[in-house]
């Protein structure tokens, strides 16, 4: 990969499965060294896109270059330069952690002289060096995922693809996986391309693309996306929530609802609104909090539904498409 060339460059990428158009013309560029997040509900086309970038699926049309190589015509070159961590585990449970990595090293032709040192490095990074001699079948879910990340890094890939790296893990393990991912970015010169449907995780990315029903609906830094929503979330505790909601509607024209035990509504530049609120609401206010929009709000503003609702309908959509094909 030459300097300045993007780590991932995607142009008009389309994937059709029979009648179903899973990916409908995706365009994006990821700079070297970025952590790039792919956000969207299940069934939005994230995994299909990532599979095309990893050379596991052939695009119906469009093109993609990863680490400077075309994913169709230079498949082996792409494969040599990427690391993969899939949604579903791909470890051999009968082998020890170390044996799994050794298998990978041989499979990728890692120069023999470098294997022990490199293996130690990646295992230490994910905190599994002491457990390397244990068979993988006794590893916990989080340990397995960490081992897979270590394995994906073993051959020093330019781009590491992580497909839902934290799905199905408990919150504590999720945050420790994120620690490793961030540490990794500092230690290795690597581009990370990941998919997730956890909003809070997307915040850790340098840039995120929001995908819905096969297309990218938004692509920017998390901050810019949130700023683009243009509204802050205001929560107030009052003596009479019902009266407060009514007053907000009548005097300010705002739709409010009770969420998390507080009257909640969205308004542009929330801090500036607070003095007016106290002056004009006419209902005693006990406390106020103003917060910047979350990625949940971003997703909502671009797709018109929360990610959880979108998940439900996307699944229905996929199911219907699958039924239609039969």
């Amino acid at each position: 990969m030459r300097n300045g060339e993007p780590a991932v460059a995607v142009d008009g990428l389309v994937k059709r499965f029979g009648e179903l158009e899973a990916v409908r013309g995706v365009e994006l560029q990821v700079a070297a060294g970025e952590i790039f997040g792919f956000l969207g509900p299940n069934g939005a086309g994230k995994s299909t896109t990532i599979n095309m970038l990893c050379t596991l699926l052939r695009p119906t049309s469009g093109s993609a270059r990863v680490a400077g190589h075309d994913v169709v015509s230079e498949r082996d070159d792409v494969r040599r330069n990427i690391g993969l961590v899939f949604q579903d585990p791909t470890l051999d449970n009968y082998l020890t952690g170390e044996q799994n990595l050794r298998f990978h090293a041989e499979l990728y032709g890692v120069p023999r002289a470098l294997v022990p040192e490199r293996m130690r490095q990646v295992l230490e990074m994910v905190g599994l060096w002491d457990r390397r001699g244990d068979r993988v079948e006794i590893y916990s879910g989080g340990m397995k995922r960490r081992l897979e990340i270590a394995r994906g890094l073993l051959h020093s890939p330019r781009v590491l693809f992580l497909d839902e790296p934290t799905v199905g893990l408990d919150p504590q393990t999720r945050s420790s996986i994120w620690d490793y991912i961030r540490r990794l970015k500092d230690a290795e010169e690597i581009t990370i391309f990941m998919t997730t449907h956890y909003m809070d995780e997307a915040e850790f990315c340098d840039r995120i693309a929001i995908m819905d029903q096969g297309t990218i609906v938004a692509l920017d830094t998390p901050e810019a996306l949130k700023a683009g929503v243009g509204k802050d979330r205001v929560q107030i505790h009052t003596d009479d929530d019902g009266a407060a909601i009514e007053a907000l509607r009548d005097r300010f024209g705002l739709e409010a609802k009770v969420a998390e035990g507080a009257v909640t509504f969205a308004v542009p530049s929330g801090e500036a609104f607070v003095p007016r609120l106290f002056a004009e609401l006419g209902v005693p206010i006990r406390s106020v909090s103003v917060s910047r929009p979350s990625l949940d709000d971003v997703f909502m503003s671009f797709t018109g539904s929360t990610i959880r609702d979108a998940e439900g309908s996307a699944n229905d959509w996929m199911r219907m498409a699958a039924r239609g094909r039969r």
Partner: protein
Amino acid sequence: MGTPAPAEAGSVVRVQVPERSVRHDLRVVKIVLHRELIRFWHDKMRIVSTLVQPVLWLLVMGTGLSNLMASGGPSGEIDLKTFIFPGVCAMSVMFTAMFSAGSIVWDREFGFLREMLVAPVSRSAIVVGKCVGGATVATLQGLLIVMLAGLAGVPYDPLLLLEMIGIMFLGAFALTGFGVIMAARIKTMQSFFALMQMAMMPMMFLSGALYPLSGLPTWLSVLTRINPLTYAVDPLRQVVFAHLDVSAELERTFNPGVTWNGWVVPVWLELLIIVALGPILTAVAIWEFRRGD
């Protein structure tokens, strides 16, 4: 390319993945084979359970039917156990080889196959590694059965053991190839076992492992001659009988060889069939894996 690129960035060891080469392919073959051995060694239960069946055939069936023979047939100084011993060896090699091939289905179900298929390596290296690995494991299992020779009245002659192991390896290689062809398309372990039963039982019964192939009705005779396992069982029996001291009449009854329309097929030709079958079946398996790409 192909040379180690030492790290400059801090203490991080940077690795450069080399271009494809024959040397790299050989490393892949070796590691796939190595994994088969590790798994075989770990799975003591499988080693024991694959031993049970041949012992049953040899001791229970062999002894039981020997009595039947003694009352009427020209048994003389030879035991039925001796007769079926080579057949039992071939059978257990076949079972182990097929099970090894079946691990591909297992790997697919548990995701490990994906790890192999996304690597920048040729499919051929993976399939060849799998076939040689399956053959090695099956031969090791066969070695355990050969150790039971004494129970069947077969002498522990080092030369005989070597010959048997050689033939078993050739047969196991072809059989693993056959198993990999079946496993290439199958998605679940259950369907693989069902298919395996369907393929192995007829192969076993039509191979001459359990009865001599002379004087059979034409239909049965034809079926046994097109069964590849026949050409692995007969050489095994030939080498066993070559180390026994039996009368010509007994030899004719128990070790009639395989005939094509009255012509006795020489052992070298039988071995040639088995030797040729291995690479042919492996090539078909490689083709199947490339197609599914």
